[in-house]
């Protein structure tokens, strides 16, 4: 794999390493990761448990920092930012979708979707309301705006989580096993939604165990022992190309 920096890429990881220290034990979670993700790409990351997928997603999401290496997002070097700067970029540039939805149970659907927007400080109440409505309409959940997460099914909660990720119009959506807690019917709905978003130009990076879900991405990456062992276009990419 090339260690050259791809200037046009939305995400550019160059020679990223992540080492965890627990007492006297040193664990190399990521080892020399080089990865570029272009704008509009739909990428899946798969691999066995403990291979470093989630660590890679944490680094991509600026939830953690690498031990060394360079990470640039949307043309900006984000390798050595302070915690506050990382929080600001995470809020503006990255949307998260988690396996267990992670909606806040005491906030309504609308409030959950509005939450990341309220952290920005540069949006008016009407801007926030407009974005919330648009996002919920996109995932067909606008009619449940005043409900609380406990009143929704798993699939509906995940759609709300996707709306929350979309509301801030991020550069990339990071999805960690988005269908892991869903039955097959709801999983299908969520995957269709991600496909639709991709077709609309949203950049998606998804960690998944499920080969069928991985195959829906346009590019598939396999991680093993902290190293990218495969990086290939999928059939769906060919289909899109055709």
């Amino acid at each position, binding site marked *: 794999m090339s260690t050259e920096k791809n200037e046009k890429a939305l995400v550019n990881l160059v020679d990223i390493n992540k080492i965890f220290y627990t007492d006297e034990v040193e664990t190399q979670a990521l080892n020399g990761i080089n990865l570029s993700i272009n704008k509009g790409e739909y990428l899946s990351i798969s691999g066995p448990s403990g291979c470093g997928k989630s660590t890679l997603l944490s680094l991509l999401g600026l939830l953690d920092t690498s031990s060394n290496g360079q990470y640039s997002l949307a043309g900006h070097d984000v390798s050595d930012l302070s915690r506050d700067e990382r929080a600001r*970029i995470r809020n503006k540039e990255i949307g998260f979708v988690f396996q267990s939805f992670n909606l806040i149970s005491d906030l309504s659907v609308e409030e959950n979707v*509005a939450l990341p927007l309220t952290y920005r400080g540069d949006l008016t109440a009407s801007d926030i309301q407009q974005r919330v409505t648009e996002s919920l309409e996109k995932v067909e959940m606008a009619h449940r705006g005043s409900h609380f997460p406990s009143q929704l099914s798993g699939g509906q909660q995940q759609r709300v989580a996707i709306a929350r990720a979309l509301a801030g119009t991020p550069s990339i959506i990071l999805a960690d096993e988005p269908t892991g807690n869903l039955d097959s019917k709801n999983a299908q709905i969520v995957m269709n939604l991600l496909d639709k978003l991709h077709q609309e130009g949203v950049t998606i990076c998804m960690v998944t165990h499920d080969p069928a879900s991985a195959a829906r991405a346009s590019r598939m990456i396999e991680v093993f022992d902290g190293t990218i062992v495969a990086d290939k276009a999928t059939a769906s990419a060919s289909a899109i190309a055709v």
Partner: protein
Amino acid sequence: MSFWIDIKYAARLLLKKPLFALTSILIVAVGLGLTVYTYSMLNSLVFKPMTLNGDVPIYAIEAEYDHNHLSRRPADPFDLNRVKRDIDVVDDIGFYQDGTALFQDIEGKSGTVKFNASYVSWNVFEFSSTPPMLGRGFRESDQQKGAEPVVMLSYDIWRDYFDANEQVVNSLLTVEGEKMRVVGVMPQGYAFPMVAQAWLLLPPEFLAPVERGNQSVFGFMKLKSGVEFSEFERELDRVNPLIIQDIPEEFIWRLSDNGSYLRALDYKEASITQYYSIFIAMFIVVFLILILACINIGNLLLARVNERIKEVAIRVALGIPRTR
């Protein structure tokens, strides 16, 4: 919008665990209530200087505090007069003694009644800028040799022993075996220079004694407008050694163990010298109760944080700024 979301969220959390919310609020309310109550009480009693009706602070002047017996000590009026004469910044000075007075043959009451009384210099009511509720205050002429003895009643004994009869003013009462004319009644709650049920005048020789004697009084004074207390203290430091130097052997008992004599301090501080440490100890205890309440709340909240740790992680992932 974020403000309203936070408010609504907080309200929902409180309603979700009403017992927890009620307990927390109650603990904080008790802790804070006790502290605020004690502080406001101490502020009135201890910290705030006494000014009575004017804005001019009042100071006490007396002999050094007796640390062996934990009591205030009066001074010779001869020496207090010298302070007034030698220190130019003193505007007005007055004297008093605390004691009791026996009232006899009060109409409708049998026997003799003993009241707490303040024996004062004639200027006490003018000094405190408080006119009597009925009648007149003391005059300088009342304290002259040969003047008719006079007495001022407090509101409480006027109400309780004289049935709030306004005719009592100008009547004659037998006080300490002597006929005295009632010149007035002070307003309810008036307690200067100390709590008393009646005010009587000091004998005239206390006001301007020509030589030292065994008579002892406490002093109250005001400084001239614009004069800082520190300025007076410097003057007192200058005059005190001169007074001490002049004290003959027979009155050496007036000096404290370390040989010092007069002291001046805020009037209120002087009045509560004996109780000051009790007040401060009380405040510390109440403050410790507040800290205890905060620790309890802290522990309760810590337990809640453990429940909310996942939510915190979600908010961090969504990019919550540190200030939120």
